[in-house]
């Protein structure tokens, strides 16, 4: 069986990573896996490292609409979803769609806005529809949110509760680019201009088909399910974490592993796929106990993964 549309998708990753968004390969891959497994992406990093460029680059190469919300302390839910305005000529209310009605939505600094607005956004992400004044509006397909979050020790933030973080499929960071690259970027200036000239490499229908293919055709054998469950169980038994990984975390892990297998050109998931995506999928769902706070969460998770034997028989 052929892995449909895998070539153009790899082409997108390659184009972005090599020409426009150098040094963001991890973020690009994470974003692509999120897109393929119908999830949303949370980028945890400081401003100015190219989050917006990433979202713009993705939307441009994928041929998707792009919307952006800059979250502030006074942002209201209606600023995201849209409002009804009274049209005097028609003598009735007329709904003006908000930025959420875009395929790709960049929600910048999500932890700066009020919890009320956060939860409105996250509910829309989960349900993939918006209900306003008794009318339900479906969000476009595909729909993906790329939210960014400043590290929590920054001033004036409302940290997202775990229950809401759970709704993001994956998290990633961007990090500073390597010195040589950074110098080159400094010399060339912003790539925004170039990004606006990218021709789409994929159509919307192709993305929908690829998502469907990943969801329905990539095999996830019982042994892999067992492996994922083992990871869930051990995280729950682990002394360092407050709570273990939720069942939704397990589902997300499976979905992301499917997308990873697809990108690797396989029709079936292998344990390595789970290992590859595990940190990105799981780390934001776990909280270390206060007494273990000095540890690096990702390092603890890596140690946890190393304890679990891979099913080879």
């Amino acid at each position, binding site marked *: 069986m052929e892995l449909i549309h895998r070539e153009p998708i790899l082409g997108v990753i390659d184009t972005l990573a090599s020409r426009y968004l150098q040094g963001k390969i991890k973020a690009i891959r994470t974003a692509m896996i999120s897109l393929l497994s119908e999830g949303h992406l949370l980028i945890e990093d400081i401003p100015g490292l190219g989050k917006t460029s990433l979202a713009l680059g993705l939307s441009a190469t994928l041929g998707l609409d792009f919307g952006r919300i800059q979250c502030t302390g006074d942002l209201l839910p209606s600023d995201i979803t849209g409002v009804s305005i009274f049209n005097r000529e028609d003598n009735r209310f007329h709904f003006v769609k908000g930025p959420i009605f875009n395929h790709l939505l960049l929600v910048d600094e999500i932890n700066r806005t009020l919890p009320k607005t956060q939860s409105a956004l996250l509910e829309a992400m989960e349900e993939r529809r918006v209900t306003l004044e008794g009318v339900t509006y479906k969000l476009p397909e595909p729909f993906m949110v790329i939210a960014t979050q400043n590290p929590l020790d920054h001033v004036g933030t409302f940290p997202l509760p775990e229950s809401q973080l759970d709704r993001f499929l994956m998290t990633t960071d961007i990090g500073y680019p390597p010195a040589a690259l950074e110098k080159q970027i400094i010399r060339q200036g912003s790539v925004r201009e170039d990004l606006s000239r990218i021709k789409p490499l994929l159509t919307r229908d192709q993305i929908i088909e690829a998502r469907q293919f990943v969801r329905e055709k990539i095999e996830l054998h019982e042994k892999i399910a067992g492996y994922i469950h083992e990871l869930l169980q051990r995280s729950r038994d682990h002394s360092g974490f407050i709570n273990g990984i939720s069942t939704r975390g397990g589902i997300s892990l499976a979905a992301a592993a499917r997308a990873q297998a697809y990108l690797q050109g396989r029709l079936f998931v292998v344990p390595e796929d789970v290992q590859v995506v595990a*940190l990105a999928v799981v780390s934001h769902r776990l909280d270390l106990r206060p007494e273990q706070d000095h540890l690096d969460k990702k390092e603890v998770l890596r140690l946890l993964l190393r304890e679990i034997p891979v099913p080879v028989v």
Partner: protein
Amino acid sequence: MNNLQQTVHWLLYLAALIAVLPIFSFLPLWVQIFLGICLTVGLLRSRIRWGQTTGRIAVAITVVAVSASAVQLSALNVALPLVQILCLLLAARLASEKTPRNMLQTFVLTLILLASSSLLTLDMVYLSYLILLILILSSGLILLSFIHVDPQIQLPCGLMKGLRFFLLAVPATTLILMLALFFILPRTPTPLWNIAGQESAALAGMTDQVQPGSFSDLTSAGDTAFRAEVDELPASLLYWRGIVLDRLDDQIWRRSSPQVREQFRTDGSDGYEYVIYAEPKSDLYLVTLDRTDRLQGVSHRAESDGVFTRHRQDHRRTTYRGIGRPDAVAVLEGRADDYLAVPSSISPQLREVAAELGDRDQAFSMLIERLETFFLQQQLTYSAENLPLTQAPLATFLFESRRGYCEHFASAFAVMLRLMDVPARLVGGYLGGTYNQFGKFYLVTEDRAHVWVEALNDEGVWVRIDPSRLAVNAEQAFSATVATHSYLQTLLDALFHSWTRRVLNFDLQQQFELFREASETLAGLRRFDVSMLPTVWSTIVIASVCMIVFLVRRRTKNFGLVPSYLRRLADCAGLEKIPPELGLYQLADLTGHPLCREFAECYGATLYRGRSLEAAERRRLKEIVRQLKGQQLVIEVALPEGLGDNRKLRGPFQTDQKGNQHAIHRS
């Protein structure tokens, strides 16, 4: 024309051959030629141009031929014209174009033809034809279903392999099912429509009248008269009683009716139980082991002189059972006058000798002894060839030619006894038989037909006397008739007998017996026997141990591979053990060795898709493990590094991509 289509065509011709072969010799010459022509046309079909007119002419020829056969159909002659029509239709289909529809029809025709050939012959070979045809037919039909979907279908090698298993499994199941149905399907005690074997009835052998001197040469065929399942008996007991002849009209011994009453007395001994499988024959007499008082398994009438006759003529093989009691005696209860009558035309020479030898005043044993002495003195020779034909055969036999066969001996002896006032009669039947060690039965052929004498002694008891033994050459004459059979012949005969017994004669009664035996066995099982307990338990334990060993072996057969692979890798990399958290793909990445990559892709594709390894794959994987021996590998134990490192300019994607393209082709 591809492989699959070619295969189906050959199967088709093979099926036709098998269907026609058993009846080919029965067919008239023109049908045989028609078959040959049609077969040639069918084989050359792809090479000849076939116009519309030619097709119409062919149809017309077939219609004419079929009608010509149909005209021969009558109430008495059903089988042959029917088979002939089927042959013609089959021939027409063989010559026609090989579309899936036509091929299906051909297969159906072959099956019907083979079935109908059982109307003409029921040889044992039929079974092998049937099994072969089922094998061919079911494989042909499965392949046909493929061709029907896509005539140009090409099957990949792996699928062909699975198909081959399927092609064998289906007929095997069919045959097992057929065997089960053979036993279970309800039978009638008699065939509903009896066609087979009408023309076959014995012509030579035992006859219902004896006329010594009517032939100059007695030639008898070695056809089988009957088979008798019985323990091996001493030769002196092997007298098979068929008919009793008590009246001598002029020169012909006949059977009168009704007979004088006799009482059959057994001494309480067990006797010899036997079962007789008689070939079809034209007379009504049932052969029994001398003497038998009761028969079972056939509708018959027992007459007082120990002769059994069937109620009605039956052209089938007959099976019946009885108990032979050589020690029993038959006592005459009525008057013996009828057994003393001698025709007036009897030669005076015989009367003189009889008068010399004595009369009823002397003791019975004395008279017999004297008569036997007389026969011995006459230096009589047992011979069935070149005998004189005269008006007074008995006198000629005793005093002139002194040559004759059993009828002469017995007839002369009986007449002499009667002239000496000793009641006597002739008994016709068979003598001896060839014991078949494999089938535990006596094979009695028609050339063993024999006639002997029964005489009434002083107590009114019938005594068997075989005058043929008084011939000077009795030893050679009788041993000559016992033809020696080769080992192979004996084995074949035993096979044939069991075919007749188990298959052809399988009827309602045997079915009932089978069910009864099965239910008895079941009832026996239900009865709890403490002494059986250890046996039962040990059987269960052994069976479960075998089962566990089998399951473990099956598990390790596939998966013992991975431990050996991991050990080998650890050896190569100088590690004590490969850490369990490293997957096969990760190991392939870490080593960067193409063999490790191949192992991971081949094995992973089966393991993580819930498929078991095929034999070829397993061989290849073992080969990889062997080839890895002595390789130097470097493994830096590490988990996959997540989704890449942003600090590297380019991830390992390019290499990944290539490697995985390969993986797609493999899976």
